[in-house]
């Protein structure tokens, strides 16, 4: 590993009205290293990246690239300087071909016409470097998110990048896909590129990073060599408190007499064509039920069926002993069911509306068009939940899109709590959220169950599931395989079940 600094940022300051996003932050990237940038939501990671890539202007401070001072004016400018960024959400055009995506805006020309042959062969070679062999003339949307992510990286690389920024590239990838990405990252590092890696997954940090820089509340905590910083210490530095509070198991007391718990919802041989094969499931009050399985296993589909978002094609749903037909989410809400969907951005938040409106909307929908919640009551409800869930915002009229991911998730949680549900279904409620907020949400989940609510919990993170759930239904290939309860629940048992189910 060389130690020549490739990029240095010194005394970076950036303020927004009412917030000091970055104060005197230093960051150094050396050529040929993978450098993780860590911190909780709101720590200033994104702002630092934005300042570097020219999305935001910095208030004061210096940036040097290869020993020369630079001041990036726009993302395009920073790209020309050799700083390429791959964002969390793939920002490519799904309806264009892979090759078109890579060369869009800078198509090679021959006799004034676009040289398609060159585009396709260059794309092919580019992707080959990343060990990907696909038909580059196919529409990008036909490929998996992982491939799309790789294409995004390929595009970033083609512009002769010296610095590659990966902003949470793995949040939509599965394990095998992550491995592939890490392989590519290591390869690029060995070729002398400097890579800035932003992620929430700490295991991944240790899997690939050489160095780690931690930010907290817009300030630099420090720069560390990855091998010399144990995970527990890392977490402590990120959240600034003892790891003890996190490591404790928060599962509610196991010896509640399981049998006596009242069944709130029962799915009796229910199925939904194309979504989930026939399954039966009891959901009990005062219990956190986990739906375990890999992405696409049918766990989210099961949740959607119970929320009336997908139609039941056979079998029935019984709530409190009575058969119900849930034609749409509103029917489910009226039965006391609440559902935080998996994809917060497209399925949950109302970006241009205020926090207040985002919170009361489901309650208002439950009440209907004419039983209007007055402005004053709306404000009271919003303020109550902002306080209860500790949502960090200047005020209730702030637009939800201006909040960080964790706080957005809390607003969505508040939306459903406001409807006073009997059953709360949480699909990936902690995805893309920092550890502190994660722990808060996990605690809340268990607390709700202790207070008598039925909770269904879905998460890709096994740790989280093991800590919160007292019973688990395991899914694979759109089918429910079985259930685990109490002491049976362990990572091995679940894996065994999924492996054996095929």
């Amino acid at each position: 590993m060389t130690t020549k600094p490739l990029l240095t940022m010194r005394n970076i300051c950036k303020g927004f009205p009412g917030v000091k996003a970055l104060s005197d932050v230093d960051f150094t990237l050396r050529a040929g290293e993978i450098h993780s940038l860590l911190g909780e939501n709101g720590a200033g990671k994104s702002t630092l990246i934005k300042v570097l890539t020219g999305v935001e202007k910095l208030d004061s401070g210096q940036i040097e690239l290869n020993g020369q001072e630079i001041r990036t004016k726009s993302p395009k400018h920073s790209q020309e300087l050799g700083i390429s960024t791959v964002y969390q959400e793939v920002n490519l055009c799904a309806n264009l071909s892979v090759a078109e995506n890579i060369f869009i805006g800078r198509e090679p020309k021959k006799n004034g016409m676009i040289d398609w042959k060159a585009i396709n062969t260059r794309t092919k070679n580019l992707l080959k470097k990343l060990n990907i062999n696909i038909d580059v003339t196919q529409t990008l949307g036909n490929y998996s998110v992982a491939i799309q992510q790789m294409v995004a990286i390929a595009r970033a690389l083609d512009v002769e990048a010296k610095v590659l920024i990966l902003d949470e590239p793995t949040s939509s990838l599965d394990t095998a896909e992550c491995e592939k990405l890490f392989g590519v990252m290591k390869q690029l590092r060995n070729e002398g590129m400097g890579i800035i890696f932003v992620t929430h997954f700490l295991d991944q940090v240790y899997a690939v990073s050489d160095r780690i820089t931690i930010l907290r509340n817009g300030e630099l905590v420090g720069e560390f060599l990855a091998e010399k910083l144990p995970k527990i210490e890392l977490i402590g530095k990120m959240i600034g408190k003892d790891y003890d509070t996190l490591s404790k198991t928060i599962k509610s007391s196991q010896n509640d007499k399981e049998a006596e718990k009242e069944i709130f919802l029962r799915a009796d041989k229910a199925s939904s064509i194309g979504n989930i094969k026939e399954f039966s499931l009891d959901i009990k009050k005062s219990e956190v039920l986990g739906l375990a399985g890999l992405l696409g296993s049918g766990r989210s589909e099961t949740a959607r069926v119970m929320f009336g978002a997908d139609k039941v094609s056979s079998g029935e749903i019984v709530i409190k002993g009575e058969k119900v037909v849930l034609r749409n989410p509103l029917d489910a809400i009226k039965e006391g069911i609440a559902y935080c969907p998996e994809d917060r951005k497209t399925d949950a938040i109302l970006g241009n509306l205020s926090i207040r409106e985002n919170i009361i909307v489901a309650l208002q929908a439950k009440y209907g068009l004419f039983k209007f919640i007055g402005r004053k009551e709306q404000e009271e409800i919003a303020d109550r939940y902002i306080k209860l869930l500790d949502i960090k915002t200047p005020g209730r009229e702030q637009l939800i899109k201006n909040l960080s991911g964790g706080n957005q998730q809390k607003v969505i949680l508040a939306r459903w709590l406001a409807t006073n549900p009997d059953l709360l279904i949480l699909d990936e409620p902690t995805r893309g959220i920092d550890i502190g907020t994660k722990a808060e949400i996990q605690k809340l989940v268990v607390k709700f169950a202790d207070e008598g609510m039925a909770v269904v919990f879905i998460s890709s993170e096994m740790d989280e599931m093991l800590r919160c759930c007292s019973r688990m239904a395991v899914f694979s290939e759109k089918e429910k395989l079985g259930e685990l309860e109490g002491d049976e629940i362990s990572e091995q048992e679940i894996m065994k079940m999924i492996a054996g189910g095929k």
Partner: protein
Amino acid sequence: MNKLVRSRLFWPLMALIMLLIFNALFTKNFFSIQIIEGHLYGNVIDILKNVAPLALLAMGMTLVIATGGIDISVGSVVAISGAIACSIIDGRIGNFNNSLIAALTLALISGLLCGVWNGLLVAKVKIQPVVATLILMTAGRGIAQLITKGKIVTINSAPKVNEYYFIGAGYLFGIPFAVFIVLIVLVFILFFVKKTAFGLFLESLGTNNRSSHLAGIRVDKLKLITYVISGFMAALAGILISSNIKGADCNNAGLFIELDAILAVAIGGNSLNGGRFSITSSVVGTLVIQCLTTTVYALGVPPQIISLVKAIVIIAICLFQSNQFREAVFGRLMVSKKSKDLSAKKGAQIS
């Protein structure tokens, strides 16, 4: 002051005030109002009277646009409604005994039905709004022709002609009756939007369809309702227009008026992508359009270039509403504090 600038109403209102000031300076007798036989006459009164149909259309259009849709069939619905009303008054269709009530009721029902048709195509069949309403836009004038059997219906000699004429051109307490109609409808709509959850639901589903559906909002039903309201407004506008000329001209009644209605919504500062909306701003937008038309005529601009002059003014108005434009042209000084806050907030997503 800050709150005023922040309001959606600010820029359309500014545009209107600027136009009025311009007229005060350059147009002779623009603000003079005469009283003739107990009725008020003058340019300002003309504007109020002539804007009525457009104002009604713009209210309906605002709601449709708030859902992220658009209704380009309103001009044709204007023609259908006028054709039905005039044909009944004139006793050409059905057996209604020239009844005014029957004429108005059936004309309005026709508008509701047109709205239901559009709404079903958009909300249930899931056709894109432009295409869905394009169907009625093209077919509508044909339907109107069928009703009038291809003729221009004039009702000069019909028994109830004066009563019908009163709706669009009459005066009550010296003020055009049409103005009262607009005000009453405006109050109703504002009540519906602000005192029920209708406004919240529309803004919610205009912002994010999927999220709204999963939050329990009946997205399809609400969309349908907005098209029905728009159809009703178009029918009412059709009555005003046909009453004003004592006749129904299927080919020309309400021709291209849908474009003015959409323009009014845009001048009112409402995003055509849906979401946040303001009915009042759209109505002010219609006043801007009407005032501009009257101004251009009053100035004696040659008829050939009238549309050009209008276009230039409207481009200017739309540009002024854009923060980026004001910033680029007048620098940071002129930019209201609001826009600075806004652009800063955009970046305030620190994580």
